[in-house]
């Protein structure tokens, strides 16, 4: 969709010396952002892919202003052409301290070291943004976390530091389990999109059930010792969040409509429960359905944003174990095998990374198709793309393969930014700044030297 953009200078040039009244035109809206007074970004999306990249096939050539995309990023050319993509090189994940894979997925959004053998020592960026946006507007979901073919290998279908990148913005930074089941997600989000007769009665019933449950947790909390009380209080907080969200939301915007259901009967979202430590268990039917399910889940996430059900999302392709196969790429072994378990296989890893770029294109194009009233969903968003490490065989976390997409907060796309070994926490705080939060550091301050220059 080609758009004609006007700015004040164009108007003034065209107007010459003739004095005309300058009405503020709607079309100037988006362009205005490039001149400093940018509107804050309103949506954040974080996309995780496992196992880093193959640097030699990833790094662009050309100049920062006119990058020439290399094979792995080539699929994203259409977004680069729209000037809605920024490739960010030269950042080191210095805060990723701990187990070599786990520390990476923990730090990538939290900017904090792994706490012993457990999780992060701070909240993740998406949750901090979600708290900020929820304070501005209450939506039915503070954030949505989706994962495809999740909890493989040693994590055995269960939540573990091997597979979590999202951490709550509270005192304990609890890990957030992702939603896995496409059928369940569709029902939860879109099942009651069209108001059913007697909807008010349903809401009233739900409220009185939650009211009873709320009182039980509150009564119990006061009788427990500190550690147990903390768990019960956590549960109570979550129940209150549900209570607040009931019936308190505004009607969905015009673009909002339930996506067409896709048959995912061939996909077992909980196949991770059957996994073995070393990936010996291969669920080929489920693996084969990964592209279909991935695209479907991205559609659901985009529509949840278009419907304003949420402003913050995370999308995780597998986990750091990545012990699933890629039948559609004719790769019969699992990803971790190609990364190093079976000896580093750069050609296979390149194939996988290139496919992730194709999927990312699908997501960004879907976002760019949604008209949010004169601009697209992508324009008001910031989409972060990353991984837990850079180089698969060595687990190196310097010069991380990060990308930003969108135009929220005045982010200027169409570029390749090269920094010189700056900590990636600088990127995290810069993203926060795009949302209007003016803090100067994020994550562990030991590994943050301030916001990056040049993003806007």
């Amino acid at each position, binding site marked *: 969709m080609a758009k004609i953009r006007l700015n004040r200078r164009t108007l003034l040039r065209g107007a010459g010396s003739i004095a005309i009244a300058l009405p503020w035109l709607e079309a100037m809206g988006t362009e205005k952002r490039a001149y400093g007074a940018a509107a804050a970004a309103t949506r954040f999306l974080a996309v995780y892919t496992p196992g880093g990249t193959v640097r030699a096939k990833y790094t662009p050539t050309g100049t920062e202003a006119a990058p020439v995309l290399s094979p792995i990023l080539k699929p994203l050319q259409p977004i680069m052409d729209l000037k809605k993509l920024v490739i960010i090189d030269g950042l080191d994940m210095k805060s990723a301290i701990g187990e070599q894979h786990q520390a990476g997925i923990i730090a990538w959004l939290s900017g904090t070291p792994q706490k012993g053998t457990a999780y992060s020592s701070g909240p993740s960026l998406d949750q901090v943004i979600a708290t900020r946006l929820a304070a501005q507007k209450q939506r039915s979901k503070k954030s949505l976390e989706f994962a495809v073919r999740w*909890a493989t290998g040693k994590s055995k279908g*269960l*939540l573990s530091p091997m597979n979590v990148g999202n951490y709550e913005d509270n005192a304990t930074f609890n890990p957030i389990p992702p939603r896995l089941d496409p059928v369940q997600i569709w029902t939860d989000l879109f099942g009651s999109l069209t108001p059913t007769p007697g909807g008010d009665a349903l809401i009233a019933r739900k409220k009185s059930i939650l009211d009873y449950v709320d009182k039980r947790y509150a009564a119990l909390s006061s009788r427990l010792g500190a550690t147990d009380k903390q768990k019960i209080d956590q549960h109570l907080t979550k129940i209150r969040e549900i209570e607040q969200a009931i019936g308190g939301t505004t009607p969905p915007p015009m673009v909002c409509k339930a996506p067409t259901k896709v048959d995912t009967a061939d996909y077992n979202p909980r196949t991770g429960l059957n996994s073995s430590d070393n990936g010996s268990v*291969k669920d080929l039917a489920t693996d084969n359905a990964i592209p279909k399910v991935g695209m479907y889940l991205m559609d659901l996430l985009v529509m949840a944003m278009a419907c304003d059900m949420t402003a913050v999302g995370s999308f995780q392709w597998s986990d750091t174990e990545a012990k699933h196969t890629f039948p559609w790429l004719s790769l019969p072994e699992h990803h971790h095998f190609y990364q190093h378990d079976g*000896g580093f296989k750069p050609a296979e890893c390149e194939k996988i990374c290139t496919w992730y770029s194709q999927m990312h294109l699908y997501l960004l194009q879907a976002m760019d198709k949604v008209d949010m009233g004169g601009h697209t969903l992508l324009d008001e968003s910031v989409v972060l793309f990353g991984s837990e490490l850079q180089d698969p065989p060595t687990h190196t976390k310097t010069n991380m393969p990060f990308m930003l997409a969108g135009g929220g907060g005045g982010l200027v796309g169409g570029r390749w930014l090269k920094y010189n070994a700056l900590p990636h926490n600088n990127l995290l705080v810069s993203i926060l700044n795009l949302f209007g939060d003016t803090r100067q550091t994020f994550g562990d301050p030991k590994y943050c030297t301030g916001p990056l220059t040049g993003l806007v």
Partner: protein
Amino acid sequence: MLCPDQMIHASRSPLRRLTRFEYNNTVRDLFGDTTLPANALPAEELGNGFGNDADTLSVSGLLAEQYFSVAEGIGTRATTAPAFAQLDPCTSTVTTATEDACATTIIQKLAPVVYRRPLVAGESDALLALAKATRATAGATFATGISSVIQAMLQSPDFLYRIEFGVPDQANPALKRPSGDEMATRLSYLFFGTAPDATLRAAAKTGELLTKQGVLAQATRMLADARSHAVVRFFFDNLLPINGLTDLTRDKVLFPTFSPTIGAAMHEETQQFLEYEIFSGTGTWPSVLTAPYTFVNDALATYYGIPGVTGAMFRKVALPDTTQRLGLLTQGGVMTGTVTTNQSNPVLRGSFIVNKLMCRQISLPTDPAILDQVKIPDDTTGKTARERFSKHSQQPICNSCHQFMDPMGFALENYNPVGQFRTQENGVTIDASGSVPGTPGALNGPVELARKLAETAEVQFCFASHWLNFAYGRKLGQGDECARASVEVEFQKSGYNVRQLLLALTQTDAFLYFPGSM
């Protein structure tokens, strides 16, 4: 002396929440709901490896949300005919005039079972008020009100969490122990994976569960009840690499007789074998490791080359050649589940024994320079696995860890990647000599390895350690030395009998008392 007998050594017991397995079992028993509704809940924490680690427990927004929708489904199903009549006969004759009475009857019958304790003053009224509030909404029926009550109870901490306040110990009032109901819950979830049955609830009332002997009597009864077998099955599904064999695909050209159906049969073989040996056989961990029989159906018998088995039912058969196979470790499932690829891997098989059967922690190296060298050798680097996997043992840095894994893995080379016995690989006779590192002497082949492991005390105590972690719902560590020691002593005394081990879990101070109450 570390744990003098005359003192009570209670360990901490953090608040536990029902796992998905326990939730499913519980609503099956309470409402006849066999839909496994808790499978829709988000994943538990990996924690101690069994998904029931109380120390890693946290509550996400998604969990709270799904508790609601899962409860909604159960409440709706339980209040729809014909299930509704099962709650109480009054549901079939209820009129406007008798609604409150019928609701009260249901609440007073159901709530103490759902909450696993007697109701306190006002609780029944609060639930009745909820039923009536729902009944007053547009389009509601009597059943809708009861459904709300069920939904509310299923989301309450009284149901989802195992709350324990304890009672003073009769012999020594300065000490606290779990109340009768709390002990009934501990026992019930340990042995049946579900809420207490009528017998346990009755025992809770008599005070029987306030004594060590009373607890043992109930534990003994429960272990003799076939309902305990489901928990043992769950335990082994999480301990052994057999759960996913049902989904396993292997190269059809290299292994034409292997299929996911055979994988599923191998899973069933191991589970039925364990069930029989533990509950009906000698039942010691060494006897599990060296049993001269297994369970097969026709397809699996054909796969193994065992003659004379017909039909899809699994049955006990003597192993035709106990120089080829003997005990759990040599079963197709364990041998297949420990291999990643179409090539057998002695390192992975060895590390399974080291980590899971001996509880020795050897993790992957973290130094990138070393890790770069960690790779599965190409097929071309040797005709046998021993040739292919011998390179790293010549390098001191690699050998510092591999010396503990490889000698056991090599001894298992008589099984190909899909668990079939072989004496040759690529036309070369397999050298299956090895050892159990840390024990004296050499051994040759899988059967000698199995026998040697069965004689190794470390292997027995490792097995006990897994049960302690599972039973106590956390990872035992500092402060748990006495609980561990008392279970190990009993286990050893019984000749490492698994049933005695399970009973011993209920006889520790950690199980019988509360900490900080001395």
